[in-house]
């Protein structure tokens, strides 16, 4: 007879929020006042989200509950969910929407509805996405769904009925404990990220992604309170001065003092 290690009292659902972003090695070009998404050479899961996924898998494996991966984004984002399934996510929810002109409030209202739809009470996400670099989604969502919010997280584990996490603080690190409902926004963690194996990839192909629209979740996102005027490439720097050999160090230091006036 198989003995289940999972606590039978426990019916928790864990959600990990993933965002597909241009790979950090990808070049970003601007065309007609917007970043040209069509020219992005490679799309990847946002780096901090990968740490959230790793710890979500660890929580699942320690018996905390089932794990659902949620994303809100265009159709290309579904590949990222299949990748997550290949490392062990149980189910996937894709809210298909173009988020590129949405404000934080609109995105959070969609994700809050998605979390409710999945019945999740423990949420893991990255501290910020590598495209907007904002970091608004996690804490904003925590407020919307009434969850305890822990940011700058580098470790999380089960602790009795609740969770214990390590978070960065202005003066170092803090060990904190919280109860569900709770949300953890991940910084880069010390752990290794797992890569899918062949069996995982084959299994993932059989898993079905639930794809819905914001409307299917009963969300009316309304108008954006933010109007993007333009995207531009960063200003080009004029060519600098280049010197050969360490003997030029005194010259450069003199220039820093006299031309640049920064030391």
């Amino acid at each position, binding site marked *: 007879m198989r003995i289940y290690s999972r606590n039978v009292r426990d019916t928790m659902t864990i959600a990990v929020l993933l965002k597909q972003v*241009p790979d*950090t090695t990808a*070049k970003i070009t601007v065309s007609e006042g917007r*970043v040209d998404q069509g020219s992005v050479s490679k799309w990847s899961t946002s780096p901090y989200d990968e740490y959230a996924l790793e710890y979500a898998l660890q929580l699942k494996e320690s018996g905390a509950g089932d794990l659902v991966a949620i994303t809100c984004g265009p159709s290309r984002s579904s590949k990222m969910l299949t990748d997550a399934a290949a490392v062990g996510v149980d189910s996937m929810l894709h809210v298909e929407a173009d988020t590129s002109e949405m404000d*934080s*409030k609109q995105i*959070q209202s969609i994700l809050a509805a998605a979390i409710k739809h999945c019945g999740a009470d423990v949420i893991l996400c990255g501290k*910020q996405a*590598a495209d*907007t*670099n*904002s*970091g*608004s989604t*996690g*804490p*904003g969502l*925590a*407020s919307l769904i009434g*969850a*305890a*919010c822990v940011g*700058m997280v580098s470790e999380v584990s089960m602790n009795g009925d609740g969770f214990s996490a390590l978070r*960065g*603080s*202005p*003066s*170092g*690190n*803090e*060990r*904190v*404990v919280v109860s569900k409902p*709770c949300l953890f*926004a991940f910084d*880069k963690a010390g752990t290794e990220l797992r890569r899918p194996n062949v069996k995982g990839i084959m299994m993932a192909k059989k898993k079905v992604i639930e794809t819905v629209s914001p409307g299917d979740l009963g969300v009316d996102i309304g108008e954006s*309170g*933010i*109007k*993007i*005027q*333009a*995207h*531009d490439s*960063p200003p080009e720097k004029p060519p*600098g*001065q*280049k*010197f050969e*050999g*360490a*003997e030029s*160090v*005194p010259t*450069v230091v003199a220039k*820093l*003092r006299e031309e*640049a006036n*920064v*030391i």
Partner: protein
Amino acid sequence: MNITIIAETSGNQLHSVTSQLAGAAGSLGGTITLLCPGGVGESEASEISGVSKVVSLKGDCFSSFDSGAWSAVMAPHCEGVVIASSSPTGRELASQIASKLGVPVVQDLTEIGQDLKMTRSIYSGKAVETFTASGSCVITLRQNAFESAGSDGNAELITVDSTSEVSVAVKEAMAKAGERLDVSEADIIISGGRGMGDPANFSHLNEVADVIGAAVGASRAAVDSWDEIPHSMQVGQTGKTVNPSLYIAVGISGAIQHLAGMRSSKYIVAINKDPDAPIFGVADYGIVATWEEALPSLKEELAKL
């Protein structure tokens, strides 16, 4: 227009960025209220030029950081445009306050103009976005991107006793090993890359940093290669975006992720033995030399100043 500033604190003191938030707020024109969580720095805050009113929020919840509890106390005191620092705690608090007020939040702005036309970098500095807000919003500002306000103010000081239920319990606090200046705080940064050869060689960067009061940073390649170099030192797309007055890159080739995080520095010096390294493309002053040759001379010259 009403403007509410969330004071940034550092331990039991007001963080200097608070004055930059007030400087930026002053450029918008309007009545400025400054909120001091936990009452920290209330008297110093009341002397910041342009601030009309300081609300000192005293309550048990402010003894440790819980953005949910803090924002629950703070949100009812926020009106109009709410401004905070884009530090990790500033962003977390700003997001929670925006959510409670039902308004959008935009993080890490580098410029604010008339009619709430604002600028931020996206894709870690690979592109720049300008946008306008149609009404009330919460914004966070990048440190060192705005001029500080003066300190000849005389704001009215109001104390409010209010707390909220804390749901994040701190069990243990661990101080940082070594009290080096953080790269996101520093006006001068000297960073090392994998070209330093060995993490022990970062001691040479520390020596130069000590001479000029700089912070020491690192490239992602260095952080990924060596356990001794913590992620907190990483400058670039998955690390910190910085804009100091002076950035000195040593043994850093200049991968696109690194350039994204430091290209907005006012002046950039690159020291690299490879004359074709991409870092020279963004450097104001490039020195083609090994770090072994260049750093002793750099330390000596800087010590003379």
